[in-house]
């Protein structure tokens, strides 16, 4: 029996998934984990090896090259590293294992030309999801005060926070026709993708602080679900507050009373595409930024990002949201269109100018009108 098993193992195509957070975090890492499961289901003969919580706080002393070595020993031919944090390590490991294919999520080595042939990048166009998040938040908000629970500061997070702001601004000014001055959109950064006690600011406290300050919607930009949990607690105390979680389709589960909806990643289809290419031996070192399937952004076989409306979203606002999605999809509406200024007043997009992918990707500051740190000066 043992031998047969080994033989069967030999025929398997193993791919390794390295996750920064717990695979059951109801957030970023779980979305990847389920993407991996999707691959196992849709490409027969593939098998996922995974390790989660790969970050220096949870696994002190453990490095990406080390894990990759181990996964390769276990037979992995394809490695996915799911955090921006793993950028240097993945590059190092890819150079050490030229015959193994690597995908670094959210990175840009393939874009900057640093990447060896066996390393590609993949990311979803979450700015659309975040626009929807901002849009629903502003539609729902009574006070016009919206908090954005930011992770760490970099191009990606600035991009996503700005996108959420643009969505909110659009809803506030164009849909609700309210005074632009009454919309207050504040970002607070905790310092990492999730809470590391003593190292990052505590997201629970940051969220509570938002609500205490009069925000009634908090948009989460972090990998874990503190925002919705706090929103739920506050609701039980009788406060009318909402939250928008992030990353994972099932993030609203259990906190229905406060959850307006969740912008999420659907990694499965992109993974399948990449792994199939790798199996056929023609995976290229590419920088891929996969967008939603505008026909049905929640189609699990085609759309890379989606927005799952939550139970707390009113029927009326849901209708508005659907309209908004249609407009975005048709290209009729482009929120990254000038005039837009950076926070310090310098010009981001001139009047009428439409941002290129690269401009959006390398977002150097928050946008004018947002409150919060743009960069750490």
């Amino acid at each position, binding site marked *: 029996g043992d031998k047969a098993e080994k033989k069967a193992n030999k025929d398997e195509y193993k791919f390794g998934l390295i996750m920064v957070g717990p695979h059951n975090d109801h957030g970023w890492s779980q979305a990847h984990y389920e993407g991996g499961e999707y691959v196992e289901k849709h490409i027969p003969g593939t098998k996922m*090896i*995974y*390790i*989660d*919580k790969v970050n*220096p*706080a949870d*696994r*002190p*002393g*453990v*490095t990406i*090259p*080390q*894990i990759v*070595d*181990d996964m390769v*020993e*276990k037979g992995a031919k394809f490695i996915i590293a799911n955090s*921006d*944090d793993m950028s*240097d390590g993945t590059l190092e490991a890819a150079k050490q294992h030229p015959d193994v294919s690597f995908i670094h999520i959210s990175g840009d080595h393939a874009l900057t030309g640093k990447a060896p042939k066996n390393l590609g990048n993949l990311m979803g166009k979450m700015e659309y999801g975040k626009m929807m998040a901002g849009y629903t938040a502003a539609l729902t908000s009574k006070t016009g005060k919206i908090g954005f629970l930011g*992770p*760490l*500061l*970099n*191009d990606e997070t600035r991009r996503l926070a700005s996108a959420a702001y643009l969505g909110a601004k659009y809803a506030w000014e164009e849909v609700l026709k309210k005074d632009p001055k009454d919309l207050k959109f504040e970002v607070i*950064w905790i*310092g*990492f993708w999730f809470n*590391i006690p*003593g*190292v*990052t600011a505590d997201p629970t406290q940051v969220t509570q602080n938002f609500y205490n300050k009069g925000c009634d919607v908090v948009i989460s930009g972090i990998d874990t679900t503190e925002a919705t949990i706090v929103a739920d607690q506050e609701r039980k105390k009788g406060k009318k507050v909402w939250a928008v979680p992030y990353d994972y389709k099932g993030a609203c589960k259990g906190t229905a009373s406060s959850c307006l909806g969740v912008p999420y990643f659907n990694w499965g289809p992109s993974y399948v595409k990449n792994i199939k290419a790798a199996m056929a031996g023609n995976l290229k070192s590419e920088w891929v930024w996969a967008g939603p399937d505008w026909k049905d952004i929640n189609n699990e076989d085609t759309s890379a990002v989606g927005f799952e409306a939550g139970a707390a979203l009113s029927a009326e606002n849901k209708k508005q949201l659907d309209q908004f999605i249609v407009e975005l999809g048709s290209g009729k509406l482009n929120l990254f269109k000038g005039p837009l200024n950076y926070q310090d007043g310098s010009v981001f997009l001139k009047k009428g100018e439409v941002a290129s992918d690269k401009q959006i990707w390398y977002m*150097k500051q928050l946008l004018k009108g947002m409150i919060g*740190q743009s*960069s*750490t000066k």
Partner: protein
Amino acid sequence: MTIIKEENTTISLLKDISLTALFVFIFTTLIITISGAPPFEAYENIIRGAFGSYSKFGQVIKVWIPLTLCSCGLLYTFKINLWNIGIEGQMIMGAVFGMAAFKYIPGTCPAALTILIAFIAGLTGGAIWALFAGFLKTFGGVNEIFAGLGMNFVAQSIILWLIFGPWKREGIASMSGTEQLSEPLWLSTFTKMRISPTAIVLTVASILITAFILKYTKVGLGLKAIGSNMQSAFMYKLKPTSYMLLAMIFAGGFAGLAGTMQVTGVYHRLIPTISSNYGYLALFVVMLANYNVWAAPLVALFFACLNVGSIQLPMVLQIDSSLSGVIQGALVLATLGVQSFKTMKKKRREYNNSNGRV
């Protein structure tokens, strides 16, 4: 007569060790079973994870290095009866000073020289940090445990401030660390095991130096004397204060060296958790090694195996790798327990003997 005595101690040592191991084995097996995983498979995976391949064993060595360095440092402070819990912070400050050297020494300086300066800087940084706790202890009367603990948190804040503030990556503020060092500043490594010969040589040298200092120099003897009875120090013209500070300098120096080693040899940058808890773990190591210079590296090796091997647990069995910490803790606790029972038994026997003579 002495020979018989020695034989006895060896046998009883073996007896103690097996008794301790048995306790721990039963305890961990129970814990793993409770968690719903097969215990023997877990053990097997840990062993394979540590010895399964060159690169895995190389990884073990990578953990062994800082652990052993910190243990060497702690041997000095334990010798003089100080509980240097601040070792963690000392390692952090070593890393910070080392990183500062890398950052501010111009790139025109030869890499080898830069690395050397960084090591010296790290050693100094750790020592300075240890001295703070030492001064608080000797001149301020603040217990070294609380002083050290406090200094750990202060060090943690400093490293965070640097990483989120002045030393952040361009446009980024993340706990993932500073910009990477340029490759020439990495410690070069053997290809297969990916371990650095420099690091190994330094570590082995540290063990030998520590053993030599503690065994053959007046410093070692003085530390032991003051540690055993501070009240008598004046008879031998020993200054307890100076010796305590000296021990702290040694401890901090070795810890600082370990910190710099993590920067140039492992992470190639500064990260907030650069000390990886190795300082705290080294306290375990030294306790378990019964404060013996030769046993400490072996225990450190064993602990490193547990640490590295346990990464297999989540990958293969989907259980948490913190099992290694549980085993380590249980080992130290069981050792302390067995020790106590032995002294109690011995005392009881003496008591009974003296009764019998009445």
